[in-house]
């Protein structure tokens, strides 16, 4: 067993403190099994109130039509599609963490994947609201689906990126949900077996699906996770690629660029990790899970943020270069007049985007900054502000001045109901997250236990003598020991 558990001392432990399996269960189940704190109630009530405002805003839009929003002749996609792309981008981190990092065998993902996946699901739910309610006649939203109807049957246009979106996002939501819940089942079973109260036994009994932890079931569970990760990896890349096709396959200057798919995917990972940071920096503190979501986890995610932020930065510069080098008058106008030009009506938005997304994450080149919680939290907010402005810049500055100057719109600014809708999705997101963090373990219990004997602090310390052995001693002592 020596070799099975051996991991180099060079890597910092992923679980701090002297923990055994039972202690891990106790620590992670504690927030679920105790009464919620006052902070939880305050946060939850605020979220529900904001959600209510969102519901009112959407109701206004449904009753009185999309006219309640300030969309005009040229700006047909304004706040709502900006928010859609923003939320769907945020919804990419969870699956990235759990799927891609699973394939890459990154042990640190175990501390953050469960919460990140939950966040993904809630973000996709929020994202889905925008195109649905933007339809105006939302009661015919099912027209997007290819069902045998009485109009021919008339099929939707399978060549349209907007229909690809319907398929991509509903598939992404379904697969993320299945992936998340199949991972959650064993942990819910743990809660069920610890439950003392009647309603807990009932609730977790239903939710655990009768999981027992049989070796054969674990074997299948492992196979399922691996294949789902393999499927979710191209899926997560495809979803934002397809979202970028909504723009890239059009002939609008500023949208019609081949760089969009990789640029959108990098931006999605960037904003998604920022949202994970925002949530986890608070969650680990409030739920006292600092031993599981350690500074190491925060630092690693900050490294991903600086990497993807820089990729996004290169994409911005490439776009500008091509706008100039391509010598297309209209594209040049969209980029050089409507965006980079600080004196243009939306020039400020472009520079907020540049500042937040490209310049500010560079602070994470410094180790001290990566490991500073306050800086991390502040930066995570800043990045998401920047990423919101990126989508706003792409959408609004490309369309508010179209080919015909007489239809150049006046300044597009949202109405209270557009803002209210956006706020409402925040309410929805945080309501879901608060409920999740109260009723489900925010850390993947079984996965933490799985890596505990290799990456736990106390177990790593026991490996110090192994580390100091010579190669000969090492082979002699552990070479033929495969657990037989």
């Amino acid at each position, binding site marked *: 067993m020596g070799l099975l558990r051996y991991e180099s001392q060079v890597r910092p432990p992923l679980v701090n403190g002297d923990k055994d399996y039972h202690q891990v269960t106790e620590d992670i189940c504690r927030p679920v099994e105790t009464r919620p704190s006052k902070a939880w109630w305050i946060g939850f009530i605020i979220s529900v109130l904001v959600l209510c405002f969102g519901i009112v805003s959407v109701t206004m839009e449904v009753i009185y039509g999309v006219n309640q929003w300030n969309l005009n002749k040229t700006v047909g996609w304004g706040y709502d599609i900006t928010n859609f792309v923003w939320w769907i981008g945020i919804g990419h981190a969870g699956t990235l963490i759990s799927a891609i990092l699973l394939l890459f065998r990154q042990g640190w993902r175990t501390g953050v994947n469960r919460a990140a996946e939950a966040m993904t699901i809630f973000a996709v739910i929020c994202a889905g609201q925008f195109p649905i309610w933007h339809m105006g006649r939302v009661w015919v939203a099912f027209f997007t689906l290819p069902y045998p109807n009485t109009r021919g*049957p008339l*099929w939707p246009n399978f060549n349209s990126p907007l229909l690809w979106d319907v398929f991509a996002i509903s598939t992404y939501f379904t697969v993320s949900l299945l992936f998340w819940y199949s991972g959650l089942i064993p942990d819910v079973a743990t809660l069920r077996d610890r439950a003392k109260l009647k309603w807990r036994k009932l609730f977790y009994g239903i939710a655990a699906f*009768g999981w*027992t932890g049989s070796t054969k079931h674990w074997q299948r569970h492992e196979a399922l996770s691996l294949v*789902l990760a393999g499927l979710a990896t191209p899926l997560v890349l495809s979803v934002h690629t397809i979202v970028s096709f909504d723009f890239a396959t059009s002939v609008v200057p500023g949208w019609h660029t081949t760089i969009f798919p990789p640029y959108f995917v990098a931006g999605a990972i960037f904003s998604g990790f920022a949202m994970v940071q925002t949530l986890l920096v608070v969650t680990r503190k409030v739920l006292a899970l600092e031993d599981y979501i350690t500074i190491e986890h925060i630092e690693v995610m900050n490294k991903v943020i600086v990497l993807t932020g820089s990729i996004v930065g290169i994409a911005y510069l490439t776009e500008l270069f091509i706008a100039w080098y391509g010598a297309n008058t209209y594209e040049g106008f969209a980029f050089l007049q409507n965006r980079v030009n600080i004196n243009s009506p939306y020039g400020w938005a472009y520079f907020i985007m540049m500042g937040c997304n490209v310049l500010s994450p560079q602070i994470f080149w410094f180790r001290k900054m990566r490991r500073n919680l306050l800086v991390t939290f502040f930066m995570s907010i800043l990045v998401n502000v920047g990423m919101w402005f990126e989508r706003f810049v792409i959408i609004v500055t490309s369309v508010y001045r179209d080919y015909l100057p007489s239809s150049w719109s006046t300044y597009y600014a949202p109405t209270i109901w557009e803002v209210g809708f956006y706020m409402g999705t925040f309410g929805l997101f945080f309501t879901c997250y608060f409920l999740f963090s109260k009723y489900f373990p925010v850390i993947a219990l079984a996965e933490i236990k799985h890596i505990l004997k290799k990456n736990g602090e106390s177990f790593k310390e026991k490996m110090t003598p192994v580390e100091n052995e010579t190669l000969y001693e090492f082979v002699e002592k552990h070479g033929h020991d495969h657990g*037989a």
Partner: protein
Amino acid sequence: MAVKKFITGNFYDEAVLFPAVTKVRRAGYKIHDVYTPFPIHGLDKAMGLRDTGLHTAGFIYGITGTCTALGFITWALTLDWAINFGGKPFFSLPAWIPITFELTVLFASVGMVMTFCYLCQLAPFVKKDHFNARSTDDTFVMALECTDKTNEQEVIGFLNNLGAKDVEVQYRETEWWLGRYDKDTKRFERKVEPVH
């Protein structure tokens, strides 16, 4: 099936469990199952379980999704209701790749999860007998099935020697049944006496 007799032993360390599994098998006892709180790599091999065919099922579901998407779109846009989109060919395969890919992933994932649930008999309101509630927390529980010929004391002694704790005889239902965990339901709760 019905209630069977088992001898269970609890282990708290994989380093003890692995050799124990090997020795129990070598001694000729039949391991009913080992219940663990997390997946232990190599335990299935040590127990002599064969590989799962879930991957293959996933592949078949995926191919089904690909064929469904391509077949349906081809039929809808070339045969059933061909629409001229800007003079492009009716059979415009590149534009169908995204939906084909999405349906492949969707079919494969949903199919695999449903197969997984079917094989492991997982569903809401399914109830199964537990040997030890701590097996979802920190205990590895090994259950050996007893037959008429089994010498209980010998098995108990054997497991104790291998490092198992709290070795005991338990009678357990081996199948699932519909029930709730807040109520102490059994699979054959009401045995009505036959009327003669």
